[in-house]
């Protein structure tokens, strides 16, 4: 449960960062492209301006009847084409002595000088300029990238700091238990929203604790208060039982009343005991040997075992010391065995095994009809026919919970199996 919640909260940070990241990538690409194109346009414009100037110089020379020719940078020849125009273009050239083609910007012009038409081609190398372009864009790119990384980290750190209060609250909530004695207090958060959240949670927790406490007190009071009237009714009925010359019907009425009354008493006692189990301090733990307790329980239940002719098959070859309250362990084991006997068939078997630190009790019995997972719930009964009050296994479960004993039930090929994992309550001795 804890890991679940922290997983969700990590997602929250990621989610916030992710949105920032998307936005950032989008902006960065835009910035990068703009820088690239702006720089490139600037370079081209400058090159074109330069080419135009050179061509104008060439025209000046032509006017003085000197034709400058310096291929490939400037080439002039007479043209038959008589439409005067300027065409700018890009091309690559392999210069003599160079082993790579170089990018060039070219101006192709047809001009009319002194009544004659000339074709002038001016070229300028873009090599250096392109290099400059790459350099500028790289620097911009790196800057953007660095900024992005930095921002992501900062964002994460900031989010973490912001969410710290939130995490503290979550942590406290995880530790919260409705039957805790102390008031549920959350630290004051620096963020108003979280502060409000904490206040609401404190209010809710306090309310829950108080409601739970008063409900428990009420149950306890009720159970105690009911004890005396029950005692009076019981004793009156038993006294009535002693009346001379009662007829058969009266006996039957008394019998049924007394039986129902003792059922109420049993329920009452069990609930009182369940409530008492909540006060863990009442039960001091000590090192108790399991096998001995099992033998004691079997001994005390011997009459029932004989009555149903049940064979006990015990496969325990070592002792296991548990850190537990002895009378609670006794109640735990007696309740479990009573259950195995009660739901067993005549001439059935009860198997007791200790594998690793796990105690497995199996017994024959009818297949569970409905909801085996409800066996440990309060007042759960498979059949209305029996007289059980349905609290025995609830008590077992509660004791197990108190000592971190993992209890499981399965039905496997005609056998009811209950396993108790004692790994959390072993002592070394």
């Amino acid at each position, binding site marked *: 449960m804890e890991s679940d919640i922290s997983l969700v909260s990590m997602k929250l940070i990621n989610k916030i960062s992710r949105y920032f990241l998307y936005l950032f990538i989008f902006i960065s690409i835009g910035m990068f492209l703009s820088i690239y194109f702006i720089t490139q346009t600037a370079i081209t414009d400058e090159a074109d301006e330069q080419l135009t100037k050179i061509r104008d110089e060439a025209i000046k020379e032509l006017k003085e009847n000197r034709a400058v020719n310096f291929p490939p940078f400037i080439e002039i020849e007479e043209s038959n084409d008589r439409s005067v125009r300027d065409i700018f273009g890009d091309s690559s050239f392999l210069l003599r002595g160079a082993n790579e083609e170089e990018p060039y910007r070219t101006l192709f012009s047809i001009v009319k000088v002194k009544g004659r038409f000339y074709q002038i081609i001016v070229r300028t190398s873009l090599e250096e300029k392109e290099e400059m372009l790459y350099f500028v864009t790289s620097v911009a790119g790196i800057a953007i990238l660095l900024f992005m990384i930095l921002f992501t980290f900062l964002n994460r750190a900031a989010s973490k700091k912001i969410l710290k209060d939130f995490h503290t609250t979550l942590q406290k909530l995880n530790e919260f238990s409705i039957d805790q004695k102390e008031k549920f207090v959350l630290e004051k958060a620096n963020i108003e929203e979280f502060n409000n959240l904490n206040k609401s949670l404190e209010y809710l927790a306090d309310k829950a604790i108080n409601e739970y406490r008063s409900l428990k007190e009420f149950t306890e009071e009720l159970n105690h208060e009911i004890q005396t009237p*029950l005692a*009076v009714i019981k*004793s009156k009925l038993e006294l009535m039982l002693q009346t001379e010359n009662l007829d058969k019907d009266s006996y039957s009425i008394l019998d049924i009343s007394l039986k129902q009354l003792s059922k109420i008493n049993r329920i009452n006692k069990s609930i009182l005991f369940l409530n008492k189990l909540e006060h863990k301090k009442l039960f001091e733990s000590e090192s108790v040997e399991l096998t001995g307790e099992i033998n004691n329980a079997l001994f*005390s239940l011997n009459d029932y075992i004989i*009555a149903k002719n049940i064979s006990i098959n015990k496969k325990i070859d070592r002792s296991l010391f548990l850190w537990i309250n002895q009378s609670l362990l006794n109640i735990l084991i*007696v309740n479990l065995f*009573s259950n195995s006997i009660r739901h067993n068939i005549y001439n059935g078997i009860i198997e007791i095994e200790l594998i690793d630190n796990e105690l497995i009790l199996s017994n024959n019995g009818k297949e569970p009809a409905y909801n085996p997972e409800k066996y440990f719930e309060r007042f759960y009964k498979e059949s209305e026919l029996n007289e059980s009050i349905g609290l025995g296994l609830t008590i077992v479960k509660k004791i197990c919970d108190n000592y971190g004993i993992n209890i499981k039930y399965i039905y496997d090929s005609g056998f009811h199996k209950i396993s108790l994992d004692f790994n959390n309550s072993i002592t070394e001795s």
Partner: protein
Amino acid sequence: MISCSGYDLFEYKLQSIFRIELLYCGMKLILIEDERELASTIISYLEGEDYSIDNTYSYSKAEEMIHLTEYDIALVDIMLPDGNGLVLLEKLKKINPQCGVLIISARDTLDDKITGLGIGADDYITKPFHLAELNARIKSVIRRKHYYGSNEIIFGDLKIDIDKREIFVNNNLIDLTRREYDLLLFFVSNKERVLSKETIFEHVWGDDSNLFDELDFLYTHIKNLRKKITEHSSKNYIHSVYGIGYKFGEHETN
């Protein structure tokens, strides 16, 4: 035999006259229980026994009474409206250390039990209890105090040696299991009373009883006990009362 709950002068005098006689046979018992209905039922149930019973509903009256009379047995409720039964118990034990004490409590807490037994109570019974159980406990306290000298119970052909846990039928020692012995002693303690199966069951098998629905095997144990007695006696002491339970006595009833 005599139950006296008030302080009516006439009644008191009457009681004192009887006391002289009762000194030698009956036990003087004081019941300190604030729940009047419960107290009256207990007194009614104990009527058949050989006790003279005084009762009171309050701590202060009880304190007065234990100073005036030397009781053999005290039944004390822990929670009294004007005081704690345990404090009263301490005082009682100072005045009259020989007095047998049985605590009656609505709270089944180990602390009360330990404290109670620690300051001299002989037994502890939790509400709600079976009247027959209370009766058996009182008798057990009396027996432990050896008020009757020897610790033997004789009933018809039966003789029970409490100390040795031995049963004789017409002077023949019979071999009983632990449960059968407990059964018989419980029956003898509540002779001529109708005991429900559950009452018997809870006494003999203790707290585990609520774990089982079928009381059928109680019948098996009673059948065996009956057989062991009738082997040496012509009397059938254990009579079944319709479906409800059993009654122990010499005469067939119903």
